[in-house]
């Protein structure tokens, strides 16, 4: 079957000095959950952000669900089908939780307000905070904000979800509530690409774990194998620092 995400030889520079991605190629199948790990500056977030073209790349091709990321129209079409969750949540600060969930449904999907509201309430129940519909982002805890952010992305009925270090800005006691939502999503068969060092999540949900360093994919395997018996020296070195 045709992979739902096809990344071919993607290069990305930040200015002249930093070669952030050095010819990355990667195929991700429909329904697959892929976790990307790697040291800070390894290019893992950059790669993720290339998939919905929040980051531009100079060389290579990315095709998502049969649509190449080339023209502005195609990029928007891909973004409509690809949800993204950010480290800093990025909820729209001036809108209530409900309006956060409804805005893109109205503006991009052209749903009427009744349907958008119905979808939003359904998803708020799913992420476990239906009572916060009328709250504003500042009134929520970090974990609640991130769950709203996940619901906001899901409201667009995406085929793929991208998670960019979704728990890195959270206090420890809030990490689980976010991971639980992600776990449930994985079990429903959502295609997910997750940049995260949450080994527990990776072991429980991921089909594949990828280790990146200095802009390249160094090693990929099942999470179990990658974490316990990494074959590459750099992977071993990194894991020895991360795993206690």
């Amino acid at each position, binding site marked *: 079957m045709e992979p739902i995400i096809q990344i071919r030889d993607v290069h990305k520079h930040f200015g002249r000095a930093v070669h952030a991605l050095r010819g990355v190629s990667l195929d991700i199948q429909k329904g697959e959950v892929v976790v990307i790990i790697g040291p800070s500056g390894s290019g893992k977030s950059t790669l993720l952000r290339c998939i919905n073209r929040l980051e531009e790349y100079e060389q290579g091709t990315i095709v998502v669900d049969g649509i190449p990321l080339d023209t502005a129209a195609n990029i928007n079409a891909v973004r409509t089908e690809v949800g993204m969750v950010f480290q800093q949540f990025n909820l729209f*600060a001036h809108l209530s939780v409900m309006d956060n969930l409804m805005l*893109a449904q109205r503006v991009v999907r052209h749903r009427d307000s009744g349907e958008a509201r119905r979808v939003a309430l359904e998803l708020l129940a799913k992420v476990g905070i239906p009572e916060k519909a009328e709250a*504003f982002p*500042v009134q*929520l805890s*970090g974990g609640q904000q991130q769950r709203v952010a996940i619901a906001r*992305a899901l409201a667009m009925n995406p085929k793929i979800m991208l998670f960019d270090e979704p728990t890195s800005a959270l206090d420890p006691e809030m990490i689980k509530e976010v991971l639980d939502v992600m776990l449930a999503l994985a079990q429903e068969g959502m295609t997910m690409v997750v940049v995260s060092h949450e080994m527990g999540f990776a072991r429980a949900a991921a089909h594949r774990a990828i280790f990146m360093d200095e802009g390249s994919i160094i090693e990929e395997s099942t999470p179990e194998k990658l974490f316990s018996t990494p074959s590459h020296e750099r992977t071993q070195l990194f894991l020895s620092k991360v795993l206690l």
Partner: protein
Amino acid sequence: MPAKPKAAPSPPLDALARIPGAEPSAKLDAWWWLLVGVIALVVLLAAVRPDPFLRIIVFVRDGIAVTIFTTVSSFALILILGMVGGLGRLSKNPLIFGLSSLYVELIRGIPLMVQLIWWYFAFPSVLQQIGIAFKLPFLMQYRANPIAMAILGLTICYAAYMSEIYRAGIQSIPKGQLEAARSLGMTYAQAMRHVVLPQAVRVILPPVGNEFIALLKDSSLVSVVAVTDLTRRGREFMSTTFIPIETWSMVALLYLVLTLFAARMVAWIERRTKFER
């Protein structure tokens, strides 16, 4: 350094606004009294010494209307053109960025009075020359309308400053807001309209309010290009009566009433938008 903010870092402004007791209403009330005091002084002068004070007010009242009309209509245009300029200054397109930067730099380097004189005396001649060159009769006979040229001049000048206010306001909104909107499939225009600008508006309201009051005062310069505003009517009154102290004191007081009232309006709007939920 592992930054671990508990909440999103973006909205300190709104957070502050919702803390009970943080609203500056007590201070605002005090400023209303200043406005009331100045109005009372004007009324008192007119009542105690109708000649010349009431005569002055009656004489310049159409000038007050012209001043308000010129200021308000310029300001509406400034808000629009300023946004265009501000977005241009943020554009990645080098041509758009270059043109808007050139506009801002040029205009900010020329005194407003010179600009107003140019639009009134030079610009119509430019149009006439073009009309003659291209045989366009409606341009050949172009006659400058003083108020239209004054509004044009004020708008072009103030919109350059307003562009920078818009630019700063938009830049103050965290980049993640735009990225989140774009990641949901919104176009740049949709993301600006629904996500970035509504937040930027709250940030730029105070400086925009200041611009309005500055414009109100600077509109007195249009009196040199044949607009019969409050200042020009004051000068006309003085040239027939030769009582400078009374005339210009009353004109100054009338401007003060306008600016103080405008300042109260701005403060009121600021408060409203902060609490609007």
